[in-house]
């Protein structure tokens, strides 16, 4: 029944790991399912792989794990998906109904443990309910503000000896769940008037634009208005990274021109962004002179940290469509943007960009004999023509990738922004590669993160998943070290590996993959090309980079405003 329901949902892959409580389900998959199952080496990787698949395709990722440790191992991946609003359905086995609550073998209260990190959860009580629950779970996971849904399945209700007529419901009715379908037209009109009157506007685009498939609409609106666009870490790619209207990422490690523009703006149009603490720095000093228009599908995101002057609750695609329409009407009636003011604003922004922008000229030492991590990302960008799916783990490498890989398409940049989960990147790359086998998929990582899910090298051998792993090897937990340099006078408390790292080349070779060590600058581009030329092989590039490089810009915290930044180890602006 479960296997059939998953087929009826159009599921393409199941990421999972068998165990006692789910053996009936696994037997059904063996006997009758057409859906490929990817056997991971750790349940956390199953959730991240399903998550990577979901981010790359927009469809819900599906995970199947057993009870107890299987379920608890999946928790980090569920929390990761929850924080970034990723659609996912997690089927977890549970001990038989009559054993629940008796501390049975491999029993854990999965519905309870996952409660704060799921959009919703179900404990299925009767076998006959399975199809409806699965239908509901997919519906809830993928509509409104997406998120993970857990279905806990006691072993007895999956027993194949119990036969029921299978009815897959076409529609689901949930009396307490009605996500907004349109924005309020009066509010949208107000927003359009504000936008047309703006002197120093900024569009602040977030992950919601990617999730809501509204990139084209956002791009049209921005071009129509000739407004500068900045993006959150989660929204990169929604607006083309190489477009001159794009200011780069904003926030803690955002571009100077983006953070300055936000600080000095008079109108901020936030689209599918949630004013995260890593974006706004100090809330009381955020955008002091700006009127804020906030479009979000989740009413709870609006005015949570920063009060919105014009709140608009609705799906970004429909709101932006309405907005474009109203804008055209207003323009037809003779209302225009203030062209002179905008020209002045652009002049100012370009001045900032010329002085501090990361793309106008290198802001790191290009003459250093050591490989700089920024150069690695630039080489990756060149070799993949800026078209790869790039996943990342968490740390300095993540920020370098976000700053230097100029994403021109949505869903190409896949990282754990909200939860900041180390170990995310590699399994997520597997999910993306399975979804798009022809595309280049690279995981940008570091020695810390990669070792948190390195066991998946074995999964890639079994299913031949030829992702490229770009390891920015600096011998430290780089971001921790950076903070220790800046705030703890260089006391590297537990952030160094002291020569304990494996020889990654030999390690990946042991799994049957290709490993290439790069420690000379002159070898970088060639090695990168070689890695991507080996289409059918997993290649691990172990790139030894300058261990003392820091990520800049970096906002001054605590108590800094958007514009307060370190731009190098010694310069603060």
């Amino acid at each position, binding site marked *: 029944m479960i296997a059939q329901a998953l087929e009826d949902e159009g599921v393409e892959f199941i990421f999972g790991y068998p165990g006692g409580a789910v053996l009936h389900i696994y037997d059904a998959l063996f006997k009758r399912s057409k859906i490929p199952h990817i056997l991971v080496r750790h349940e956390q990787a199953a959730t991240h792989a399903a998550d990577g698949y979901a981010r790359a395709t927009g469809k819900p990722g599906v995970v199947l794990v057993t009870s107890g440790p299987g379920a608890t191992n999946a928790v980090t991946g569920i929390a990761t998906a929850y924080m970034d609003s990723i659609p996912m359905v997690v089927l977890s086995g549970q001990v038989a109904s009559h054993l629940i609550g008796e501390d049975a073998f491999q029993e854990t209260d999965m*519905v*309870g443990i996952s*409660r*704060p990190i799921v*959009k*919703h*959860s179900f*404990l299925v009580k009767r076998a006959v309910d399975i199809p409806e629950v699965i239908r509901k779970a997919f519906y*809830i996971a993928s509509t409104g503000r997406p998120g993970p849904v857990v279905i806990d399945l006691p072993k007895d209700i999956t027993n194949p000896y119990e036969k029921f007529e299978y009815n897959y419901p076409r529609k689901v009715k*949930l*009396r*307490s*769940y009605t996500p907004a379908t349109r924005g309020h037209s009066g509010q949208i009109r107000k927003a359009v008037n504000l936008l047309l009157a703006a002197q120093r506007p900024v569009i602040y685009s977030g992950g919601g634009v990617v999730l809501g498939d509204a990139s084209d609409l956002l791009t049209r609106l921005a071009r129509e208005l000739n407004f500068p666009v900045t993006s959150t870490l989660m929204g990169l790619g929604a607006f083309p990274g190489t477009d001159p209207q794009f200011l780069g990422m904003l926030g803690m490690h955002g571009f100077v021109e983006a953070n300055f523009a936000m600080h000095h703006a008079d109108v901020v149009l936030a689209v599918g962004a949630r004013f995260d603490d890593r974006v706004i720095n100090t809330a009381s000093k955020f955008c002091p002179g700006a009127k804020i228009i906030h479009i979000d599908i*989740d*009413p*709870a995101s609006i*005015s*949570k940290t920063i*009060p919105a002057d014009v709140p608009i609750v609705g799906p970004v695609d429909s709101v932006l469509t309405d907005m474009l329409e109203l804008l055209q009407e207003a323009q037809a009636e003779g209302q225009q943007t203030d062209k002179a003011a905008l020209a002045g604003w652009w002049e100012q922004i370009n001045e900032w960009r010329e002085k501090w922008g990361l793309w106008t000229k290198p802001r790191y030492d290009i003459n250093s004999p050591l490989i700089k991590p920024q150069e690695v990302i630039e080489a990756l960008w060149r070799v993949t023509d800026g078209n790869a799916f790039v996943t990342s783990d968490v740390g300095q490498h993540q920020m370098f990738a976000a700053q230097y890989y100029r994403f021109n398409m949505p869903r190409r940049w896949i990282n754990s922004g909200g939860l900041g989960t180390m170990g995310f990147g590699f399994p997520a790359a597997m999910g993306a590669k399975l979804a798009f086998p022809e595309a280049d998929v690279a995981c940008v990582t570091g020695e810390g993160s990669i070792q948190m899910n390195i066991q998946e090298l074995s999964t890639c051998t079994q299913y031949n998943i030829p992702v490229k792993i770009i390891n920015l090897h600096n011998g430290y937990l780089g971001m921790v070290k950076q903070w220790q340099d800046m705030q703890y006078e260089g006391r590297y408390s537990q952030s160094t590996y002291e020569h304990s790292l494996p020889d990654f080349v030999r390690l990946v070779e042991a799994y049957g993959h290709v490993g290439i060590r790069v420690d000379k600058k002159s070898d970088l581009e060639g090695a990168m090309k070689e890695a991507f030329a080996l289409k059918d092989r997993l290649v691990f590039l172990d790139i030894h980079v300058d261990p003392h490089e820091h990520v800049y810009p970096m906002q001054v915290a605590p108590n800094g405003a958007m514009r307060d930044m370190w731009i190098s180890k010694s310069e603060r602006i």
Partner: protein
Amino acid sequence: MRRIISLLLENEPGALSRVVGLFSQRGYNIDTLNVAATEDPTLSRLTLTTLGDDQKIEQITKHLNKLLDVVKLVDLTEGPHIERELMLVKVRATGAQRAEIKRCTDIFRGQIIDVGPTVYTIQITGTSDKLDAFLQSVGEAAILEVVRSGVSGIARGEKVLSL
């Protein structure tokens, strides 16, 4: 400011824990809470009181509304409403005290619902303030046990919270 938030909740296992969990997860506090099934057995009515400024209350109601188990929600304190709380108090009642406590109970329109040689058990209903006032007038020394139901509330007039 103190608010009384009343919800219609799916009468299903786990629903209550999602509501309560939301409060601890997001650092909101619950002062009182009560919940019971309604005339429609698929729905429970849950009433809670909480403290917070307007922004916090707005967040609380938005997050409660997001829960799939919450079918309807009303902040009773936004309009005219009636609130009641039930309290059972066991007090030491000996000698002259017995008459004094009886008088005090009458003044607060309470009832003595159980009598022992040295104790009275008193039932009082009213607003939370009234119950506080009763406890104060009986005096801490006499009080042996206090059981309060938490606030229940309903809007005045035609307004109803139903599907």
